[in-house]
């Protein structure tokens, strides 16, 4: 790859400064976040779209922001490039407080923040090359450099040979590749993705997410992704933030959130990302133990624990061999997460307590879903 990304220097310069003053190992200072929001509020008429949002985005990370429609995701991402002015709170992006920027300075900042959209938003009257070149023309790059850069970018996103096509001649996935090339054109320090895969089929979604992951790794580009699909978060985001009614209801490492969701909404979002339906239909579950019933458990293990032989460990502590109703190991962000749904024969409270005491340390969570006479 021949792209020269000057912003890589920006990303590493903080480290150089931290290392410079002392000879002994300097305490590792937290790198300055690329984006810092403090108590951001925005109201549209009767709707409080953002209700005191605070968050930080570290350089080089892929942050997922997930929520249902109307949760305030789009308003939030539009605050990050000043397309939306919040009513209260501060938005600092690339070290600048957006509230202090005048129109021209804000435009320059937007030039350093790329954005991709659900519906691609490509200009139909321009060719692929014309679309990708537009941010460069806005930045005042001369024609020869523009042409070379456009060729590099199209190669990067796997669209060489399409330079003279019009967007209408491309498939959805190709259009989003053009959108990504266009967003990268002006060497952004930050990439905003507003539901970039929501209009694509699953296979194309996977390819586009792979491309975003590659770009993040190869260019060190920081990405903030808005989505309503937990599967997107699982595929690419190291960290995730759950938005509901304009507030952050949960945040943390993606694997952590998947293993131990704390809110009902997050649980539901995660369930929708898992391929399989419920192992035991709800109508067959009973809420309390009666002699002879199976206890239906869901256990989740993450990290290295996910790769251990879990069923054997459980059997040892419970004293009986549980039935495996469902088992899967997923990669969430970069970590493996194992989810098991088990039926423990004659699941007495004592037996479950013994199991919890003996093997509990292996699991991130152990949840009793209910009891059933016939789990299969």
């Amino acid at each position: 790859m021949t792209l020269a990304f000057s912003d890589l220097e920006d990303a590493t310069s903080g480290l150089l400064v931290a290392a410079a003053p002392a000879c002994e190992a300097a305490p590792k200072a937290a790198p300055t976040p690329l984006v810092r929001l403090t108590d951001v509020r925005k109201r549209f008429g009767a709707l409080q779209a953002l209700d005191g949002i605070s968050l930080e985005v570290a350089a080089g990370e892929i942050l997922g922001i997930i929520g249902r429609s109307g949760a305030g995701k789009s308003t939030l991402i539009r605050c990050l490039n000043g397309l939306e002015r919040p009513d209260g709170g501060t938005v600092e992006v690339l070290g600048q407080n957006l509230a202090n920027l005048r129109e021209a300075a804000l435009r320059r900042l937007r030039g350093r923040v790329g954005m991709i959209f659900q519906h691609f938003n490509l200009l139909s009257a321009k060719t692929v090359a014309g679309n990708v070149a537009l941010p460069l023309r806005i930045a005042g790059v001369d024609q020869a450099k523009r042409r070379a850069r456009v060729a590099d970018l199209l190669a990067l996103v796997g669209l060489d040979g399409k330079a003279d096509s019009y967007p209408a001649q491309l498939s959805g996935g190709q259009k989003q590749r053009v959108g990504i090339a266009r967003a990268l054109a002006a060497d952004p320090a930050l990439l905003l993705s507003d539901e970039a895969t929501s209009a694509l089929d699953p296979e194309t979604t996977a390819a586009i997410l792979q491309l975003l992951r590659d770009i993040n790794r190869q260019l060190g580009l920081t990405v903030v992704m808005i989505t309503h699909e937990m599967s997107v978060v699982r595929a690419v985001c190291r960290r995730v933030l759950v938005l509901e009614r304009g507030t952050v209801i949960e945040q943390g490492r993606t694997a952590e959130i998947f293993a131990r969701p704390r809110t009902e909404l997050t649980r539901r979002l995660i369930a929708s990302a898992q391929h399989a339906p419920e192992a035991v239909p709800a109508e067959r579950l009973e809420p309390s133990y009666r002699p002879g019933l199976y206890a239906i458990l869901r256990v989740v293990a993450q990290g290295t624990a996910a790769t251990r032989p879990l069923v054997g460990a459980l059997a040892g502590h419970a004293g009986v061999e549980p039935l495996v109703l469902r088992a899967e190991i997923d990669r969430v962000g970069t970590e493996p997460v194992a989810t098991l749904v088990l039926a423990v024969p004659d699941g007495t409270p004592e037996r479950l307590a013994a199991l919890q005491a003996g093997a509990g340390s292996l699991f991130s969570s152990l949840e009793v879903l209910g009891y059933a006479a016939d789990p299969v």
Partner: protein
Amino acid sequence: MPLIPYDHLLQAFWETVTMTAVSGAISFVLGLPLGLVLLNTAPGGLWAHASLNRGLGAIVNAFRSLPFIILLVALIPLTRLIVGTSIGTAAAIVPLSIAAIPYYARVAEVSLREVDRGLVEAVRAMGGSQLTVMREVLIPEALPSLVSGFTVTLVLLIGASAMAGAVGAGGLGDLAIRYGYQRFNTPVMVAVIVVLILLVAAIQAGGDRLARRVDHR
């Protein structure tokens, strides 16, 4: 005198073409910016300005509600001021343009309004100024529709230019009234109608072709 005065017919044809082309060009050059202003000063526009928008809208509507024949007479002093005379083809161009500018401004406003807001947002998100948004998004994206609207405006101008015969502007309409109607010369009437039909058909076909050529959607 032959049944159909071909030299008159040819001259009238060129007069009509001249009036239509010149006033059409003027209405495009001035009507498009006016359409952009109407769109962008409207609520939610790039530089929303309610009172300016309402004021301009009222003026545009006032001109559009006047029957052309009234406008033609009412504008005689202005025409005399600009052209020096109120008679002839050049003189007719003034009222024709003034009638067509607000008309095309509204047509252009509607076309420009149809442009996907997401495209405007995308270009603003990459740091584009309002001028960039207009030059790179609004006008190019609306171009097929702007061209179609302009074709309609031209056809309308051909009709209006016939009335301009009232101020001695000449043209096909004038020929049809003076020779065909007042002198009961039916062949002239028929000939004029045929030429007008061909002219309108040619403009419409040309406009459609151009609109298709600039349409990459």
